[in-house]
């Protein structure tokens, strides 16, 4: 039996110092529950994604508190940690549990508070996703990971560094344009008319990447409710089906050697998802990819099979990935424009995919969106999860 998403919710992404991680998840959950039009008692388990609650809020074992907060007393509740892919890992595990018949209906979501933690703690917390010994002793940060990849991308594909910086800046321009239109985005109403020069001239973080090549630190929560096909059809007019999922892993960045710009785990995860969905990249109407940095969106689109290696930067600069291009990418603003509350990011991509497929993403609707693919990356290609969603 197939599995469907029947309700979605997310908080406004941004700064929420007055809300706990539990509060952020709960806020997203109430929206999802209302959207699904079911009763609390229909939900049998909680799948919760969170990356660094220990470091930002002094809380690790959050799943029980999350379940208790929303009134699901004593329900099985599990926290999933896969760095920035935490809630997509949770989503895939939940889909498999429902598909296997263990559950009829469950909630999956996540929460994170990085902006309220401040830059120093936030950067250190994010860096816990790199190799904790060999990469950490060198002081490798996440902007650093993608800065290493960007410079190597230019060398490998014989693109002068300055020319590459200009082409990847289009990712930031595009995603900020869409983020500025999205009322749930951290940068709603801001940076909508960003120029390539603004990206190039903003503060250097890890050369060649500037502040505007990077996604922001964000607080936020998201939640989606999934159910088996029978229950979904009973309660929902327009279930959005999970057509395929894929997941793969990778080790330390330096051990990936020449493949650091090929994201092999992502290639394997995407192939797994396409195979299960019995479709190819050209069947996908739009994608939500993990644009933690501008170059990250380029690498993602190539590894997933939408463009040949070394070419997505040209396609992006030409507008192929914009709303009126052949393959709209990140219509909600992506991590760069919408924000990146790590543990909540994955299910917020599912939120966008479902809203788009239902035709409810009115501030930036993809025309005739029937099949969407999401892509979430945890660490330096350590955890990769792809999900394909669609309607009949």
């Amino acid at each position: 039996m197939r599995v469907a998403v029947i309700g979605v919710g997310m908080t406004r992404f941004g700064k929420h110092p007055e809300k706990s991680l539990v509060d952020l998840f709960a806020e997203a959950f109430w929206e999802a529950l209302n959207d699904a039009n079911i009763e609390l008692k229909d939900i049998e388990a909680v799948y919760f994604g969170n990356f660094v609650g220990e470091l930002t809020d002094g809380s690790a074992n959050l799943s029980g508190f999350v379940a208790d907060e929303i009134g699901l007393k004593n329900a099985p509740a599990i926290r999933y940690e896969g760095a920035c892919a935490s809630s997509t890992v949770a989503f895939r595990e939940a889909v498999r549990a429902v598909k296997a018949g263990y559950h009829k209906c469950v909630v999956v979501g996540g929460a994170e508070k990085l902006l309220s933690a401040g830059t120093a703690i936030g950067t250190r917390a994010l860096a816990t996703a790199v190799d904790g010994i060999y990469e950490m002793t060198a002081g490798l940060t996440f902007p650093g990971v993608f800065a290493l990849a960007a410079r190597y991308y230019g060398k490998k594909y014989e693109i002068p560094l300055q020319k590459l910086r200009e082409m990847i800046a289009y990712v930031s321009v595009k995603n900020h344009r869409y983020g500025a239109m999205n009322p749930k985005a951290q940068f709603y109403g801001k940076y909508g008319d960003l120029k390539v020069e603004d990206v190039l001239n903003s503060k250097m973080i890890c050369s060649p990447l500037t502040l505007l090549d990077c996604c922001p630190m964000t607080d936020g929560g998201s939640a989606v409710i999934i159910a088996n096909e029978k229950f979904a059809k009973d309660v929902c007019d327009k279930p959005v089906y999970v057509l395929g999922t894929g997941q793969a892993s990778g080790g330390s960045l330096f051990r990936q050697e020449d493949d650091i710009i090929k994201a092999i785990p992502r290639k394997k995860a995407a192939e797994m998802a396409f195979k299960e969905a019995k479709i190819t990249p050209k069947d996908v109407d739009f994608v939500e990819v993990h644009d933690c940095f501008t170059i990250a969106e380029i690498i993602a689109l190539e590894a997933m099979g939408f463009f040949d290696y070394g070419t997505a930067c040209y396609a992006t600069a030409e507008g192929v990935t914009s709303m009126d291009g052949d393959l709209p990418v990140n219509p909600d603003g992506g991590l760069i424009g919408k924000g990146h509350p790590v543990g909540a990011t994955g299910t917020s991509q599912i939120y966008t995919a479902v809203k788009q497929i239902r035709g409810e993403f009115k501030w930036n609707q993809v025309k005739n969106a029937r099949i969407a693919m999401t892509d979430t990356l945890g660490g330096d290609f350590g955890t990769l999860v792809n999900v394909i969603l669609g309607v009949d």
Partner: protein
Amino acid sequence: MFLEFFKSLQEGKLIGMKCKDCGSYTCPPKQSCNKCSSRNLEKVTMSGRGIVKTYTVTYVAPMGYEKEVPYIVALVELEEGPWIIGRLDVEAKIAEDNDLTEKRVSVFAKEMPGEIFYPLKDKRIVPYFRLEG
């Protein structure tokens, strides 16, 4: 094995594992071959020489590393094949104004302050790369 790796590096020796099945090298050591996953490995001393494949000048550091900026993180391909991570021992301005990729380097150890989350609490041993000729 990371303690032995760092201790050897301080003594001027870069250690790695040579695979008796496929002949490739894994460095720093891992319990399985990075190429073929075999556990049939022997500990060897590597040349410590290689070429810079990519690097980044880091201006914003995590908590505990702030005093070290700007620092240059680099990936180096060793003569024996594996890529290792460390820092380039050059001024940030030189790394920004020049393309240092494909430059020949040799590795040595520098002792840096530890931080609360690092597995070694009192100090970190950082592989540094010195430009050759």
